[in-house]
């Protein structure tokens, strides 16, 4: 594949995009998992699908060429805002926004797909990821999103961590919890939109949670958790892309299956080295 990467532009774009999302997905995923919000990624990815289907419909209907990633990103951010709105409307049932937004996303997707006269290969690529679909413009957009996400996490790292660990303490000590949470949820929406080209709508949440779940078995500190989950995610993305390319399988499938193998190896390592497993310890 490496000689092909030099020869074919599209492969180079895919590979670089893969490296970027292998960095930002677990970076944000670390916060998502410790805050027990993993399902948020699922809800937002389905809203993103609605946005992409909308984009494909517009593209077909009005014959204008634009990347459906933009409409996907727009829908994802709107979905994030709506989940927050629902969270404040149902204070005692804060997770209720997730199934509402998830089903709403799927419903809208079905309507736009039907309006655009059904499935085509583009849509298939968005569902399961694709090795060949990343255009140079997508790469630019995903690079911009990555830079923004990394910058936001570096700048607001201590606020995000403090809020994730203990929301009450964060609020009492004078941190604007609501604003930081809002930033967090918008970042999640952006990462999902960025990752969809490679891993696809149905598997994007896996890339945000599986490497973190594996790193959780090994890490003692939060910094370790982030570094380890990035290393594991990059490994899964690179091997997944290469094997997907040669076996002619959408990379979403190979990346996720490799992530699950990595997770099982982490369990095994945990069993061999540690007497007291961490993670879901009950006390």
């Amino acid at each position: 594949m490496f000689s092909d990467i030099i020869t074919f532009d599209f492969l180079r774009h895919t590979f670089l995009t893969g490296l970027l999302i292998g960095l930002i997905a677990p970076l944000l995923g670390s916060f998502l998992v410790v805050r027990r919000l993993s399902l948020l990624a699922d809800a937002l990815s389905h809203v993103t699908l609605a946005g992409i289907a909308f984009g494909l419909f517009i593209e077909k209907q009005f014959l204008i060429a634009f990347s459906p990633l933009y409409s996907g990103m727009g829908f994802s951010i709107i979905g994030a805002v709506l989940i927050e709105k629902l969270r404040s409307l149902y204070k005692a049932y804060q997770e209720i926004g997730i199934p509402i937004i998830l089903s709403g996303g799927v419903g809208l997707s079905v309507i736009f797909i039907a309006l655009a006269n059904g499935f085509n290969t583009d849509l298939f690529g968005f569902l399961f990821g694709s090795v060949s679909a990343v255009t140079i413009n997508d790469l630019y957009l995903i690079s911009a999103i990555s830079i923004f996400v990394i910058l936001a996490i570096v700048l607001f790292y201590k606020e995000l961590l403090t809020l994730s660990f203990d929301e009450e303490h964060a609020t009492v000590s004078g941190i604007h919890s609501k604003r930081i949470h809002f930033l967090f949820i918008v970042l999640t929406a952006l990462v999902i939109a960025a990752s969809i080209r490679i891993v696809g709508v149905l598997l994007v949440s896996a890339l945000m949670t599986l490497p973190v779940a594996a790193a959780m078995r090994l890490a003692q500190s939060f910094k370790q958790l982030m570094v380890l989950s990035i290393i594991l995610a990059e490994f899964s993305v690179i091997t997944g892309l290469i094997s997907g390319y040669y076996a002619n399988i959408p990379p979403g499938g190979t990346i996720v299956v490799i992530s699950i193998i990595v997770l099982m190896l982490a369990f095994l390592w945990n069993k061999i080295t540690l007497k007291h497993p961490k993670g879901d310890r009950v006390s």
Partner: protein
Amino acid sequence: MPNSIIRLENVDFSYGNKKVLENVNLNIEQGMFMGLVGPNGGGKSTLIQLVLGLLTPDKGKIHLLNQPIEHFKQWNRIGFVSQKANTFNKGFPATVFEVVAMGLTAKLGYLHFMKKKDKQRVYEAISLVGMEDEAHRNIGNLSGGQQQRIFIARALVSEPELLILDEPTVGIDYQNVDRFYELLHRLNQEENITLLLVSHDTGVLTKYATNVVCLNKTLHFHGNSEEYTALSTDYLSEIYGHPVQVVVHDHG
């Protein structure tokens, strides 16, 4: 004249139609170790939430560090250890150092990173509570009493003048409760930190607190701890609404 740290004047508070606090007047001065006692549902936690600005009184005024609470912004001068601190996610991958450093987040402010001297302060707060050997251990692997010390260190790291503790000994083994109060006593005496401690365990508290208030909707008693222990059990039973036994713990 000593500095007033917390001042409540004629404070009323209700949840819906249920009046929880009525005409509460309280003054906590610098250097006090104030114990706040009273029956469950007597309004202790509500009073703490009012002081922390999480609730707003229906009537009356609250001053923190001589400023009206509506305009109070220096929350880092007040440390808080919640009753719920011990219910944190025990699987959270964070070290003692990382958790204590969170106490500096608000004080440092947005877009400011931890510098060398801030890290030094984190280590100092950890050794102040006697946990220096555990600084880089995962917090989930410590005992309940050790975790509570870490949460005190997190509150202390921003060098507050006032430390508020809501039922901090819940979940700590009986043997460690005395050690815990020794620590608070030391912080009060040597670090000159004003303390407000909420507890239903009046026995141990009166041994260490300098002042005691007893709250059941209204303030029933406000005085120093010797006077409190001298109160008759009949009087206390009246306040609590059920018979109470005051167990006096001797000093030393």
